[in-house]
């Protein structure tokens, strides 16, 4: 019984239909691939896109003009203003990135100088300790 239950396969009345469907889809897929590879298809899609763009342009321009006037009336920034700010932000980011690169170079130089000084200890030059604190204190008194 156990073996029978394991080998039991649910009856699926849709199975033959699925087989026929797959054969039909395969044939249709091949036909469509051939069709989209033709110049006629390229021309048809190009024409449709062109018609859409031509038809939508006057409406789009009208909406843009109306929106611009509305935003001006409301003293709010237009899309062009926001785009301009975004472009300036990118420029600032680039300058910051340049600074970051220079900092990396300086950090590398300091690290290599530190390694070199540890490898070859040089006698430190005598440092004259000027009484800076006293001088400033005198200046303040004056």
């Amino acid at each position: 019984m156990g073996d029978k239950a394991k080998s039991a396969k649910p009856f699926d009345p849709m199975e033959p239909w699925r087989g026929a469907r797959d054969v039909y889809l395969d044939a249709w897929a091949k036909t469509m691939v051939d069709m989209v590879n033709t110049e006629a298809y390229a021309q048809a899609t190009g024409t449709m896109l062109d018609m859409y763009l031509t038809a939508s342009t006057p409406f789009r321009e009208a909406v843009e003009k109306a929106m611009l006037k509305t935003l001006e009336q409301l003293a709010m920034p237009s899309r062009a203003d926001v785009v301009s700010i975004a472009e300036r932000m990118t420029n600032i980011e680039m300058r910051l990135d340049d600074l970051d690169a220079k900092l990396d170079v300086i950090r590398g130089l300091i690290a290599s100088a530190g390694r070199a000084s540890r490898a070859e200890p040089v006698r430190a030059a005598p440092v004259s300790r000027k009484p800076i604190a006293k001088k400033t204190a005198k200046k303040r008194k004056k």
Partner: protein
Amino acid sequence: MAETTVMTDPVTDAVDQLKRFTKVMTTRAAIAQTPKELIWTLNKAKLYRYMPVVPKEKRHPVPLLLVFALMNRPYILDLRPGHSFVEYMVNQGYDLYLLDWGAPGPEDKNLKFDDYTLDYMPRAIRKMKAVSGSEEFSLLGWCIGAILTTIYASLRGDEGLRNLILLTAPLDFSNKQGITFARWTDERFFDVEKVLATFGNMPGEMIDYGAKALKPVENYIGNFVKLWDNLDDPRVVEAWHAMNTWVTDNVPLAGGVFRQLIVDLYRNDRLMCGELMIRGERVDVSRIKANLLTVIAEGDHITPGCQSESINGKVSSADKELFRISGGHIGIMAGSGAAKHTWPHINGWLAPRSR
């Protein structure tokens, strides 16, 4: 032995299937889960470093930077745990970085290949070098990412590029009859300037339509039929769900890049002819000296093999290999066979060259 037949209620089954189908279609799968840190940003671009899982002494010293296409999300490289190229490469001991271009806004409509290859990529690579501590690095470019890496390697290849991997790279546009996109974007039928004047950037939905229309029955019908037939198989459903999450997450293409892609590449094949100018510099692929692995997907309908074959003959690299593998444009890296075939081959090629 005759099989026992068990009658089921087709109506109840169909309702259950419909519920599962709707759930998969209306939710997003958990994707891109390999741990990573953000180490650099510029405008919309982000550079991630994946957390190494292999001890430093066992890791490959040469870091690897992944550069994906501009008009799709790069998490296809890290689709889901257990089925992720990123996860696989991190486990193989690579110091791995991913450049995510982000989605361009209206302010980015003038971005061109020039900006991506001479501003964004060198800066991201500089940061990667600083973080990894290595002056040499490897680049992996996929699809449009392969165009970017090829241009970068031609112009700035002497700045530490040791290994270059090009996956399904659309570089050679000379065979117009073999490239469906070339036919669709022919200047007799397709007005680039009119499209860009209307939209600024090329909308992601239009790019998606273009990619799907190459195989309309498979993409618009067969794909969903496959899901419906396999709703009882959680492995198939999980894979389908993750892939659908990626496929439906479209990104526009910056107007300037789209113009260059159509006019300079698809129509005039300027890259392989050595006529492509990037900020006044001629892109000469013969200047590429890095070790080169070109991967061609034999069933690729988006980038047919004829677009990638000739690059190996034009570069100056002494060490180069052309690897053909059965599968589609995305399937070779994200399909069920990728972990058995493509990823091990890339690792096998790259590992000895990353020491």
